């Protein structure tokens, strides 16, 4: 097979917001990329379109291999990639989930209005930075993870944290999968993964992870916004983190195994990072059981940080729980593989969906949408960069017909870290943000430079495509007031 089959892919326009990559070479299905003309102009220079085509080569893929509007060049799968695989003939790929298993976003709403706290943002950010370990910081002293704790955490997820006093039982109602992915088997987790993760539970990490204080600055769907607890000028908090070293090591351990089995199962790999095994194989089942443990670590992690956000509101602003009313709007996974039922050719079919840098977006009345949101759809949380805005959407009634009920996950990088550092040389990004009323605390100045707003696409362009393509509906826009980063 020519090794350069994916270097000159054709792109055919389907609609104003979608493009087809026709099947060619070893591709088993077409590729489908959601983008408007402007986004596509940027994508043409990126290797992510090749990566959509590479994923289309994997066994048992159910048409098509999908790229979201925030797609960009990753490793193996593109970031912003969605692919579904038949449970009998298909594969599971750790690279299709990524190292940061269940990296995700949680949105909290409050009863507080912006006018009440606008002048008191800096002390909040300072206190939050103290309460939530970031960067290389190890976990808090009041949280030590023994082996037996880890075993319970790996199956219990967010509920485990709540049982330990970190949160409220009601928080679980508004978390994807109720905060615990089923099928977790701690016996499949290596000692190395435990060792790497044990001190990192309850830590934010570095890179693009953050906790952001903000407010609701625009509402597009007042009835839906009100139903999910978002009011004009209401204070919000976004938590973005994942399964830390625990998940990274579980991915690495299983990738190592799967590197060795491609030949055994006669799987053609256009990129070794796509290594995979049949879903029903011992290697496939092993990965799914271990992956669920990491997913549950991430749910527990975001739950712990939620508790510390509540503490911070109480410490920095002197408010009682009744006054601040911090509640979980929703918590979504960005990097995950899950078994779901979707109509394929009009027939319901159980498939294993890989979402890597993509969000589930179930429509109204889907049985897995929480009861309180049943008639409006599942909230979809799309953070932007730290200088502009983030969006809240809900699954569109037609979402299952598109992209296996999936949506974008963020703005998507447009500049590499190297180019971002070059672009920020001589500038003081934290001071520039402060001049705009956004207070930043970070463990490393370099992180602020690498993550400066222009390193990302304008998330508005991304969600407009998501909305126009019928993947998810825009509900509200949030503006940042303060951010902590690693």
């Amino acid at each position, binding site marked *: 097979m020519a090794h350069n089959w994916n270097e000159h892919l054709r792109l055919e326009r389907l609609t104003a917001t979608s493009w087809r990559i026709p099947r060619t070479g070893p591709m088993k299905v077409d590729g489908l990329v959601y983008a408007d003309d402007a986004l596509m102009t940027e994508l043409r220079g990126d290797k992510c379109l090749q990566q959509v085509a590479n994923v289309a080569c994997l066994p048992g893929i159910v048409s098509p291999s999908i790229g979201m509007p925030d797609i960009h060049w990753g*490793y193996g799968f593109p970031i912003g990639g969605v692919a579904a695989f038949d449970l009998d003939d298909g594969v599971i790929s750790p690279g299709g989930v990524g190292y940061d298993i269940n990296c995700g976003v949680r949105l909290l709403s409050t009863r507080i209005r912006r006018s009440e706290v606008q002048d008191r943002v800096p002390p909040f950010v300072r206190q939050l930075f103290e309460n939530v370990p970031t960067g*290389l910081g190890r976990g808090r002293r009041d949280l030590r993870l023994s082996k037996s704790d880890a075993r319970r955490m790996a199956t219990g997820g967010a509920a485990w944290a709540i049982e330990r006093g970190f949160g409220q039982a009601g928080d679980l109602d508004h978390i994807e999968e109720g905060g615990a992915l089923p099928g977790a088997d701690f016996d499949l987790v290596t000692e190395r993964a435990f060792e790497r993760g044990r001190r990192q539970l309850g830590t934010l990490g570095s890179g693009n992870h953050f906790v952001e204080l903000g407010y609701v600055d625009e509402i597009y769907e007042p009835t839906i916004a009100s139903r999910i607890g978002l009011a004009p000028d209401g204070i919000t908090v976004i938590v973005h983190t994942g399964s830390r070293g625990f998940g*990274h090591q579980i991915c690495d351990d299983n990738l190592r195994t799967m590197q060795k089995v491609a030949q055994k199962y006669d799987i053609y790999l256009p990129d070794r990072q796509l290594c995979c095994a049949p879903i029903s194989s011992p290697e496939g089942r092993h990965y799914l059981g271990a992956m669920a443990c990491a997913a549950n670590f991430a749910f527990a992690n975001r739950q712990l940080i939620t508790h510390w956000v509540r503490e911070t509101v109480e410490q920095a602003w002197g408010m009682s729980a009744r006054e601040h009313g911090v509640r979980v709007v929703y918590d979504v996974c960005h990097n995950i593989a899950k078994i779901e039922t979707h109509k394929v050719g009009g027939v319901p079919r159980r498939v294993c969906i890989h979402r890597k840098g993509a969000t589930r977006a179930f429509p109204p009345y889907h049985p897995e949408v929480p009861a309180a949101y049943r008639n409006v759809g599942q909230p979809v949380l799309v953070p932007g960069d730290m200088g502009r805005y983030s969006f809240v959407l809900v699954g569109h009634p037609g979402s299952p017909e598109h992209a296996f009920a999936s949506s974008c996950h963020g703005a998507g990088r447009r500049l590499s870290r190297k180019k971002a550092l070059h672009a920020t040389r001589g500038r003081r990004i934290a001071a520039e943000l402060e001049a705009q009323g956004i207070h930043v605390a970070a463990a*490393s100045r370099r992180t602020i430079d690498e993550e400066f707003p222009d390193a990302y696409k304008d998330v508005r362009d991304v969600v407009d495509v998501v909305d126009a393509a019928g993947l998810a509906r825009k509900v509200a826009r949030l503006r940042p007031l303060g951010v902590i980063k690693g």
Partner: protein
Amino acid sequence: MTYRFVDHTGDIAVELVAESERTLFAEAVRALCAILVDCEESSLETHTEHWVSLDAEDGESLLVDFLNELVFLFDSRRFLPMELHVHELCVDGVARLHATVFGDTFDADRHRFLTEVKAATFHDLKIDRLSSGLKTTVVFDL
């Protein structure tokens, strides 16, 4: 022998050029250290060492396994890798590495932390043999 950071939209990619397998692996150690901390603004001393013994199916897997061993040591034991002393390295057939890695223990007072590394990846990884030596590009997930 050199390493240099090359553009990668989502993560970070490092191009390694070296005369031999030994220097290629040594260069990979230096590159990883430079991703983790600012080497120019850190006071780095080779205080500590770790023995590494790995087998892999080919040279590329050995390089990724080796780098991920170092990522594990940094994440779990704060070991900052700096120098590589190779005792045995073979990348043909079944690849094998026996080596001692010398480095420092991360200390926020002496080292300027840059970013965490999740893993070295296999993405588009190939060790190319040139007339002058070896060349490869490793993508790290940050």
